[in-house]
């Protein structure tokens, strides 16, 4: 199983990443892309992380997915730093011979990335205010589905 894990400031291209997973010959590729959503005067998010820990935490998540589903490949890319409304934050994708495996692994990857990887989101508004995004019980519940 190939796990391509990246934590980066630079943008990424979901199409190119999916192409790499499709080339593994599995027949089924699923993906989830998270994008900065606007509203309430939000101008940007700033994504902070724990630099020495982040890759390790995502690797554990990917290994857990690979142990649970028959996967040929995973892509997990998470951006850090300032991100404007409309920019992509995160991509998780999985390739498998089975569509249910690809889809479930993708849901698992994003649920665990949201609750088990050391990232924090700060919102920056047009009026200069900043605010840390609060963790949501709903996200914990989604992650707990996979326990």
């Amino acid at each position, binding site marked *: 199983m190939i796990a391509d894990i990246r934590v980066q400031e630079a943008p990424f291209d979901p199409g190119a990443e999916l192409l790499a997973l499709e080339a593994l010959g599995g027949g089924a590729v699923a993906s989830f892309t*998270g994008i900065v959503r606007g509203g309430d005067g939000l101008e940007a998010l700033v*994504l*902070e*992380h*724990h630099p*020495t*820990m982040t890759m*390790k*935490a995502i690797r554990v998540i990917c290994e857990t997915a690979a142990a649970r589903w028959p996967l040929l490949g995973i892509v997990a890319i*998470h951006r850090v730093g300032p991100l404007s409304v409309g920019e992509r*934050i*995160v991509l998780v994708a999985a390739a498998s011979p089975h569509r249910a495996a690809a889809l479930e692994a993708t849901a698992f990857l*994003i649920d665990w*990335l*949201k*609750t*088990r*990887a*050391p*990232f*924090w*989101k*700060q919102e920056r508004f047009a009026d200069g205010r900043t605010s*840390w*995004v*609060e*963790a949501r019980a709903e*996200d914990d519940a989604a992650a707990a589905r996979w326990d």
Partner: protein
Amino acid sequence: MATLSLLYFARVREAIGLDGEAVDVPADVTTVADLAAWLAARGSGYADAFADLTRLRAAIDDRFVALDAPIAGAREVALFPPVTGG
């Protein structure tokens, strides 16, 4: 006294005004929760950062731990709010 590297992230970092620091921890500070309580006594930024332990999370040497985890043998302790990535 053991010297420990501390890392602060997000709201904790902002409240304290530091990314991290090295501290000499007294022997009676044995868990992450003890560490937070001990740090809280340092001043208003710290007190604010650690006022609500239900909203504090931690990692020791790059692994998430519960607040009752012992800090004996730790090289680095990171203190932060619940994560909000993805």
